[in-house]
């Protein structure tokens, strides 16, 4: 080495560095060796249970298909930097973002500077900057939503995907605007909500896929879906008219449910009464008939006596129950001459007969 005789200038400059290295090695060679080993092991990474890791070697993704790129939870062996870089992505965690782009700012979407100078918001109109959507039948509604999402393609999302909140906000908004634009306001506000959500979710996911965001929309929820504030009373009036109509129908049904059985009851009672009356009448008739037949048997045995008795009983009964009885002699020569009878309450007691 000495014989090679390199330029003495370099040797002279390198001498202190060489001395430093020599000295360091002699004093702390264990320490340096440990550091070197630790550096070589620094590429080994622990991937947590809810994560997936991908390896970048010289910046390039290792593996040609997603299944080979992604490494599940556990110990992952990689070279130390700067050769390999391990990127871990939480794929199981579901995050959420509120989408208030279609919510009127007055109802709590955030404060706009132009709203501040007028304390009472103008209810007769809406600035286009206020969030709202137009339904298929040209009504205006405000919508606020909650989107929940998670990472589906870790590599795509981590290196190429747009910012999650941004892409979700615009995709969900566009999907909702479009879905509302093909439905009527009455469906949307009443029984069509599920359908609306289903359509918007499908569209938003299609959008997220088309823009290769690597995100999955796990759920889309409506926080609120309301008509404009100025029209709330009118919408409520329709609702209450509907309820009122239903109530009227219920009352009518209740009336029907009582009136028909009542009529049936009345009819049944009348029939029962008629039957009772009929059987009573029949019983009396049978009794009378039996009595008559008994009398008849007796009469056949002793016609004169029975007839006489009956006659006399009747006449006595008649005389005793009559209020006034007057006796006249039999006519002389077949006719009454100068015999007058006056009838009246005043004369009933005495002077009914004058003379012959």
């Amino acid at each position, binding site marked *: 080495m000495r014989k090679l005789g390199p330029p003495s200038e370099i040797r002279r400059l390198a001498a202190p560095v060489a001395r430093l290295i*020599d000295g360091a090695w002699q004093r702390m060679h264990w320490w340096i060796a440990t550091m070197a080993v630790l550096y070589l092991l620094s590429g080994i990474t622990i991937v947590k249970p809810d994560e997936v890791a991908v390896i*970048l070697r010289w*910046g*390039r*993704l290792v593996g040609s298909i997603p299944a080979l790129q992604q490494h599940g939870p556990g110990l992952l062996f990689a070279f130390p930097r700067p050769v390999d870089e391990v990127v871990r992505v939480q794929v199981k965690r579901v995050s959420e973002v509120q989408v208030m*782009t279609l919510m009127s700012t007055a109802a709590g979407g955030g404060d706009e500077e132009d709203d501040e100078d007028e304390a009472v918001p103008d209810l*007769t109109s809406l600035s*286009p900057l206020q*969030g709202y959507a*137009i*339904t*298929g039948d*040209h009504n*205006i509604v405000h919508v606020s939503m909650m989107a929940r999402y998670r990472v589906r393609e870790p*590599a795509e999302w981590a*290196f*190429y995907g*747009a910012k999650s909140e941004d*892409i979700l906000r*615009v995709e969900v*908004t*566009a999907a909702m605007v479009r879905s509302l*634009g093909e*439905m009527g306001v009455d469906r949307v506000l009443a029984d069509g909500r599920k359908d609306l959500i289903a359509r918007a979710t499908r569209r938003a996911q299609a*959008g997220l896929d*088309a823009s290769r965001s690597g995100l999955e929309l796990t759920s889309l929820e409506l926080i609120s879906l309301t008509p404009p504030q*100025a029209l709330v009373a009118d919408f409520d*009036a329709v609702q209450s*008219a*509907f309820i*009122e*109509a*239903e109530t009227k*129908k219920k009352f*009518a*049904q209740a009336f029907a*449910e009582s009136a*028909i059985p009542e*009529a*049936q009851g009345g*009819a049944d009672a009348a*029939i029962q*009464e*008629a039957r009772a009356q009929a059987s009573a009448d*029949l019983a*009396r*008739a049978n009794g009378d008939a039996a009595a*008559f037949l008994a009398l*008849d048997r007796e009469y*056949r045995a002793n016609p004169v006596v029975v007839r006489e008795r009956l006659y006399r009983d*009747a006449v006595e009964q*008649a*005389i005793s129950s*009559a*209020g006034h*009885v007057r*006796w*006249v*002699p039999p006519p002389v020569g077949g006719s009454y001459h100068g015999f007058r*009878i006056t009838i009246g309450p005043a004369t009933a007691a005495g002077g009914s007969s004058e003379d012959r």
Partner: protein
Amino acid sequence: MDKSLKTPEQTQRYLRAAVGLLALGAIAFSAMGVVVREGEAVLITRFGRPLRADTQAGLHWKLPWPIDQSFLLDMRRRVYETGHTEMLTRDKKNIIARTFVVWRVGDALAFTQAIGTQGDAEGKLDGLLTNAAIGTLGGHDLSALVSTNPSDLQVDQIEAELLSSTAPVALHNYGVTIEQIRLERLALPQENVSAVFDQMRAERRQFAAKFEAEGELEASRIRSEAQLEAARTQAKGAEETARVRGEAAAQVAKTYADAQKVDPALYKFTRSLESLDKLVRSGTSLILRTDSEPFSLLESKDQK
């Protein structure tokens, strides 16, 4: 330790060589190696003039400074929302639309030349997008955007038209690849909103009136049906009652008739006696001949 102590000269020489080589390698790498990460691109300039863009992730090389220089470019997708722009549809309706694009650097070289590495691509995109939106929506009716009739809607077509009219221009002029364009919002000009409100209000009132009338109608229908049914039930009851009564009367009459047939004369006699009993009341005046039945006894005695 023993080994190293044995030949300290040798060890020292190796060590020095290793450290020296490592240091040289590191210096050379930092000057000439370019690591392009996924999601990034590197633009290489030679003496300040763009030479090439390394868009493929991995290890690339360049000449050391000051000959070559590298600039980092973000290749991620980005979202850009245009402003709210008022436009006219084919059926002359004013509408305010906002679109968004998902874009990324498509041609790194063209992008840096047009916009620069840190430049504002979105400001340039805005004009392009707004013009495309005005042009495209002007060729469609409002019902292509919002309608309850599915056959009117042409949003997919409109978005496809927007993409096809902007994507080639954006790539050619700015090196920007537009991956997606969508209509994000539709709104009405502020001065038209109150008319829409009026129309909505009228519609609501009409609905309320309709519900009210329908409820009334339905209720009265239910009521009158019930009344009819009740009347029908009552009539049936009355009919049954009359039938029962009639049958009973017939049977009674038959019973009496059967009894009479045994001895009509006696029946007639007893009936007249009964009638007599019924007819004579306390207010009745009876005028009897003295020779009639009970007293004829006395009379005849006198006369004899």
